[in-house]
Structure formats: C-alpha cells, structure tokens
C-alpha cells in the first residue's frame, strides 16, 4: 500500500548521479579493456583534457548553439501549437494538409540544410529555420493527440454551455491536452538541439556542430566528444527545465492518475 510519494533529496540527486557515474565508468572501462584508441572512442579523461585545453572557445560555441536552439524551439512551439489547433478545428484542413506535414517532416534535414544555406546565408538564420523544421512535428502530433482525447463528458459539458469554439478550446480541450502537449515539448526540445547541430554541421561557421566537423577533419575525436558531451548536458538541462515546468503547471494531471 503505497505511502504518499516522498521524493527525498537522496533520490533526486544521488540516483541520477549514480547512473551517470556508472555510465561513465562503463565507457571508461571499455576503452581501457579493449584498448580502444582515442580517435575511435576517447576515454573520459581525454575529453576532459580536450575541454580544459580551450574552455572559452567551447563555451562560446555552446552559447551559439543554445541561442539558435532556443529561438528555433520558441518559434517551433508557437507554430506547432497553432498548426495542431487548426488541424483539430477543421477536419477538412487536417485531411488536406496533414499528409503534407508528414511529408515535410520526412525530408531528411541533412538534405535540406544546404538549401537553407543557399537561401538564407551562413549566419544563424538557416540554423534557426532548421530547428523549427525539426521540432514542430512532435509538438503537432502530440498536441493533436491531446486535443482529440478530451473525455466525452467534458466535451459535452463545453457544448452544453454553448461554448464558442475558442472557449471550448481554451477552457476545456487545451488544458486537458496539456500533459500531452508536454510530451511534444520534451521530444521537440531534444530534437531542437539536434536540429541546430545538423545545421551547424552543414554550414560549420559557428556552434558545437562546427566544432564536431572541425575536429572530424583533424581526427581530433576527443574534441568532437567534448562537444558531444556539452550537447548532451545542454539537452538534459533543457529537457528537465520542461519537466519542471510541467510539474509546476500541471499538478492536477499527476493527482488524477494512478
């Protein structure tokens, strides 16, 4: 018989730390035991050394990636929610345009990136556009799923109150969908980081993606991994920021579920 959930500080901090330590240990162990050369798979100390060799540079490039990611993600969220709203508002719109969205999403971003560079130059613009392109789809699909899962009795309630479309949407359907919107946001933010990197790899003038490309052409795998580790940290931070926001905004969702 479960007691009220108590999340002790121990669990919140120690368990993830233990997991991370185990993972790093495993990785390190593998590189040592199999004698893997550092340009195939660098061991953790190589990566730390690589980071400590030029921290300012790496942090500057991290910041470039962060800013592209956040801008693109912000636009992607607005676009995704708007599209999801329109798709659920008119069934005909959904029928006519959803396959196009699926098609658009399926275009490998690696193939689009060069086109964007040609159109938008090699500054941050094509990167932001690519972030938007890569992160809007999970937001759309999750939000649509949330918006179409309003329980029948709440839907009838809204109708019986002669709610306008907007009212039904903002007072009933959207709040109900929020937990699923957050699924989309969590997936979207992870992809957003990747989108920024993909764009930077294609046009490696700034950001951690550029670091990866540069280190690739000089076989400096530890530097590439330093960039990858920074990317992973960035993703974790952004992901858990969204998780925190969810906990803050949607206590009811956890309360009504087992």
């Amino acid at each position, binding site marked *: 018989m479960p007691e009220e959930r108590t999340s002790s500080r121990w669990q919140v901090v120690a368990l993830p730390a233990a997991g991370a330590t185990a993972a790093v240990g495993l990785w390190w162990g593998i590189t040592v035991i199999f004698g893997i050369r550092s340009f195939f798979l660098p061991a953790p100390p190589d990566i730390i050394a690589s980071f400590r060799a030029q921290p300012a540079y790496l942090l500057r490039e991290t910041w470039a990636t962060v800013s592209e990611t956040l801008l693109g993600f912000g636009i992607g969220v607005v676009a995704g929610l708007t599209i999801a709203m329109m798709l659920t508002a008119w069934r005909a719109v959904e029928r006519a345009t959803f396959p196009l969205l699926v098609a658009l999403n399926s275009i490998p971003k690696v193939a689009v990136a060069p086109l964007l560079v040609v159109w938008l130059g090699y500054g941050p613009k094509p990167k932001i556009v690519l972030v938007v392109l890569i992160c809007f789809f999970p937001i759309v699909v999750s939000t649509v799923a949330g918006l179409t899962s309003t329980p029948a009795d709440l839907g009838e309630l809204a109708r*019986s109150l002669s709610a306008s479309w907007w009212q039904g949407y903002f007072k009933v359907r959207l709040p109900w969908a929020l937990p699923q919107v957050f699924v989309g946001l969590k997936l979207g933010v992870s992809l957003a980081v990747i989108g920024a990197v993909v764009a930077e790899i294609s046009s490696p003038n700034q950001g951690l993606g550029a670091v990866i490309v540069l280190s690739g052409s000089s076989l400096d795998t530890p530097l590439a991994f330093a960039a990858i580790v920074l990317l992973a940290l960035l993703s974790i931070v952004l992901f858990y920021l969204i998780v925190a926001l969810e906990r803050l905004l949607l206590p009811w969702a956890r309360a009504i579920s087992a």
Partner: protein
Amino acid sequence: MIELAGVSRTFRTRSGDIEALRGIDLTVAEGEFLAVIGRSGCGKSTLLRLLAGLLPPTDGTVLVGGTPVTRPRRDVALMFQRPALLPWRSVLANVLLPVEMHGGKRAQHRERARQLLDAVGLAGFHKRLPHELSGGMQQRVALCRALIQQPKVLLMDEPFSALDALTREELAGQLQQVHMDVRPTTVFVTHSIQEAVLLADRVAVLSERPGRVRHVLTVDIPRPRSFGRNAHLADVATCVAELTDLLHDTDAPAPIRIT
C-alpha cells in the same frame, strides 16, 4: 416551453443498433416542473440530451421555446448524471465556468457562486480541486454549476443520486424554493419516487427500453411540500403508490437488435 412530438432516438453502433427512445410525445409548460422516472437504461439521460441539443433525434421534433432544437442554447442548463468537473479548476472556478463561457463578469458572479457552494454544504472547499472531494461533494459542485446559470430551462439528470438521505432532502427543499422563486421550466430525472412527488407538478413515467411515455401523472399537492411532515400525507402516499405501480407494471424490454 418544451414540446416533444414523435421523438425517437436510436444509437447506431458496430455491434448493432440500440433503440433508446421511441415515439415520445411530451409537453412541458413554461415554469412547469416535470419529473421523469423510469427504469435504468430506459432513455432518461438520452431524453435530456435531446432537449439540451447535444444529440439530434433520429425521428420526430424537439421544440424548446417554440423553436426546433439544433444545438445547445444558453438559456438551457443541463446537469449531467456524472459530475463532469474540470480537474484542473478549483471548485469555485468550476462553478464559475458557465459564467465565463457566457461572457459574464466573473467578479459579479463570484459572490453568488460562493453562496451556492455554502448553501449545498461546501463552505471551506471553494479552493479545492475536484479530486479532493467525495463523490457526493462533486455532485453538489455540478449542481451549483447548473444553478449559477439561472436558466429558463433547467434539465437535471439524477442530481441527488450520490447524496445521503438527509442532504438529499435539504437540497430538494432548496431546489423547490428556487423553482418557486425563479420558476425555471424544469425537467428532473430521478430514481426516487418520493422526490418526484415532492418536487414535480407532473411526473412522466417511461417504459422500459425503448423508452416510451407510459403515463404522465399530475401531482396536485400545494407547495411548499416536504417529506413526511406535511398536511397532504395521504395525497403523497397515493401518488407514490400509483407511480410505484406504473414502474412495476413492466413489459419486457425490447430485445436488442443485432444488425
């Protein structure tokens, strides 16, 4: 105010049709209080949903205020069989939902919402979320949400089913008072014959599935009425007995058509 003429409703499903209502003819005058009784599954909720404009009839016409019902109207309030509260809204905010939807000023109605909640015994729970309430408390919130609309037509689907005998009596008394004061045209589905007799001007008895109007009994007892302790004990007993007989006098339910 309400006219039903030859109204039928059949649900089409994968596993066959279910005929819920058949050929309902029923009129409710303005300000009248009609109770509807009938066995479980006979189509009472379906009837209310037709009146509320949530469901179109498969046959016949439904008029409210002289116009055919094609969609929900703002002057009609429906209290559902289940509380249907929004889980993210506090009790008070749930009660205020119709006000918001109808474009009323929240501030103006907040005081009234508080009074309603206090009247149904939920003082001190205004800021709680629905999942922190007991079943009966949730039902009372839903009741307040219907009453705050001050509708011309009030449709209630077993509004007191989750309440204990005492609370039931109290709230029935309050509802009677509301009806005497404001005179909304009321259709009140209940499974308590006592309650029907206490509250209604007329009581419609539906037959088993498919629901048809078996009889409409006029309750000619002056108001205010009260349970057990009034001067018309005999009249009440007669009505209750008659309704009980009507309910008992059962034809077998129509077999389910599997198509």
